[in-house]
């Protein structure tokens, strides 16, 4: 026991102090934040510049109304869109288009909008510019144009504009989830987002930390230090020590990230909202609140999934001589992690179908699939109990099997073993 902890401590400390670990621990949240913030930041930078837009109003009645509704301001309080009015009939339009295009090319103009006469009944306007890929900008122009056209139609119909607004006001829908404990929680698409994030964490833990365990075994094997080690400690204890040490490392890393996320959401720092004034989707990354029982299940599946896969990876490490050899063997195991991850997309939408039930009971899949079901729509207790029983039995079986492979494998050098050879090892040990 003491020796196992000695090994665990070595694994933990020697990795904790590496540059790679420190960099990854710091960079991962920075990267995540960057992924959320940067795109919006760049859009924001772009939309900040005032633009000169020409408007060819073939209806003759929309321009003023559009100029009012398209009045976005940038941070400096300037109008973002400066509109100039042009008129053209069907005959003069081609000539005007040519002139405007020339102006765009020499930089006097950023773009032009053609509002056809028919738009008052139906139809679409055209927005032409050098770049029309800014989704938010397109949306803003379209919304402003719609408002202008709608206002004109209402006015023509002789109805009271205020009355119409009242009549067509949207009716809202508040999704409320009924959890197993009977509590009702408001759900604004957060459950789905949350379960995806948490499943992703479990997925990453099994793959990343599992492979760290594997590489640790390969390293000791290829540096030939392993025989000195297992002369002092039982191979099984060595394996267990490695799994515990790397597992502790993983929990440390995740805890650090959780603290960072927690602090961010606690102080309500919605970094993104600094940039997205006027942008429709205000997606801050405030941490959704997690019910304690969900957190409990998360940690349980996280740990069990990690034990299961790190044991498998440890066995693979014992079978091969180098990282390159491992890459070939590792593929089926990675599939065992990737497939349930993909299945969760289906399960989140259909948590209670027969297929979902089966997928969530397969021990290798359960850490992700059963967890997703529990979060989305908690299954009956007996299913959860059965799932844990199956997982526990599988973990014990795998550890027994891998322990035997490990015992023989760590002393085998040279050719990578075939499957029959591995079965022989299991019998030898």
């Amino acid at each position, binding site marked *: 026991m003491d020796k196992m902890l*000695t090994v665990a401590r070595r694994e933990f400390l020697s990795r904790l102090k590496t540059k790679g670990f420190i960099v990854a621990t710091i960079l991962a949240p920075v990267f995540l934040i960057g992924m959320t913030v940067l795109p919006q930041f760049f859009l924001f930078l772009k939309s900040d510049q005032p633009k000169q837009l020409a408007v060819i109003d073939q209806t003759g009645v929309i321009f003023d109304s559009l100029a009012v509704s398209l009045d976005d301001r940038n941070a400096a309080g300037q109008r973002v869109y400066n509109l100039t009015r042009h008129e053209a009939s069907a005959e003069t339009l081609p000539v005007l288009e040519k002139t405007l295009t020339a102006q765009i090319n020499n930089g006097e103009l950023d773009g032009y909008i053609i509002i056809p006469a028919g738009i008052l009944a139906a139809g679409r306007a055209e927005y032409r510019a050098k770049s029309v890929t800014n989704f938010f900008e397109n949306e803003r122009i379209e919304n402003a144009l719609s408002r202008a056209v709608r206002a004109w139609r209402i006015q023509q119909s002789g109805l009271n504009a205020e009355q119409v607004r009242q009549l067509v006001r949207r009716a809202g829908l508040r999704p409320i989830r009924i959890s197993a404990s009977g509590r009702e929680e408001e759900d604004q698409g957060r459950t789905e987002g949350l379960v995806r994030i948490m499943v992703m964490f479990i997925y990453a833990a099994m793959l990343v930390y599992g492979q760290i365990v594997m590489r640790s075994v390969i390293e000791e094997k290829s540096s*030939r230090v392993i025989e000195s080690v297992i002369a002092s400690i039982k191979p099984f204890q060595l394996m267990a020590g490695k799994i515990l040490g790397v597992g502790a490392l993983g929990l440390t890393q995740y805890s650090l990230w959780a603290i960072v996320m927690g602090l961010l959401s606690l102080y309500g720092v919605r970094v993104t909202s600094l940039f997205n004034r006027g942008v429709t989707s205000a997606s801050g990354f405030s941490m959704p609140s997690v019910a304690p029982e969900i957190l409990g299940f998360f940690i349980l599946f996280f740990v069990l999934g990690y034990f299961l896969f790190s044991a498998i990876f440890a066995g693979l490490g014992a079978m091969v001589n180098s990282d390159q050899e491992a890459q070939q063997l590792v593929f089926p195991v990675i599939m065992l992690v990737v497939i349930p991850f993909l299945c969760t997309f289906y399960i989140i939408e259909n948590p209670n179908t027969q297929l979902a039930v089966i997928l969530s009971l397969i021990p290798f899949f359960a850490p992700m699939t059963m967890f997703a079901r529990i979060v989305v729509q908690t299954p009956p207790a007996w299913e959860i109990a059965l799932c844990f029983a199956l997982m526990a039995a599988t973990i014990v079986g795998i550890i027994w099997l891998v322990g035997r492979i490990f015992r023989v494998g760590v002393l085998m050098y040279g050719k990578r073993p075939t499957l029959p050879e591995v079965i022989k090892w299991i019998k030898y040990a």
Partner: protein
Amino acid sequence: MQTLQLDSINKSFGNLEAVKELSLAVAPGTIYGFLGPNGAGKTTTIRMIMEIILPDRGRILINGAPNTSPAVLDRVGYLPEERGVYRKMKVREALEFFAELKGLKKSAHKKKIDAWVERFGMAGVQMKKMEELSKGNQQKIQILTTVVHEPDLIILDEPFMGLDPVNAELVKEVILEQKQRGTAIVFSTHLMESAEKLCDAICLINKGRKVLDGEVKTIKRGFGRNHVILAYDGKSDFLKNNGVIESYNDSGNYVEIKLRPGANPQALLAAAMQHAEIFRFEIAEPSLHEIFLATVKEA
């Protein structure tokens, strides 16, 4: 009580009988050579002693207790044939790690490591990473981790293989010093010369079976003084068709000769002087190498 005792050990890998009915005993304070050609079963036996692999049958006792009982192996120091270091670890941390794997508590190993590091002249490199050390210094660390916990039994598998001459001397020195402390030392080798000079007792194995064991003195006496060692310069024609020679092992300017029973060594010397210049002429006991060859041929 013997420090190490093997009782009828057997181990097969599939159809291959790697070790068969092997028994031996090593007393405290003895240097015990475990000799045999490559593939004889030396490493397999040593790994069974260290409980890295398990014997199919038989019993292994260390200080009178089975090697499967807890903490027994903590009293053993082992230098494997395939040896390596944790390349990324600091020297000191690695030494502490191995000391703790041998059951030493932090309070106990500090002084011991300090003393050994000082003695090996490595105090200055303790904070370096293993991979920054020269190969020779890495070897020193491996030797050090074998003895740092002051074991009752030291097992060295081919200890002189790949060692530079300085470290080979160091190993010899450590072996002799530990012997004085009453430690039993078992080392395997296929190089008979190094065994001959160091060992008090030996066990010869071939194809997994013991062919000979006992004290080196006794074994040699049993083979009689009918060997001649000749160092010469010149033609070796005198070795051929010589009536007094039963067999010989010629190395070009050094030859070990086994005489026929009752033959006169002086007649050999006379014949040799006609063909070559003689630097050394010695009537001797056979070398372990000769004994090994003779025994294996007989078997």
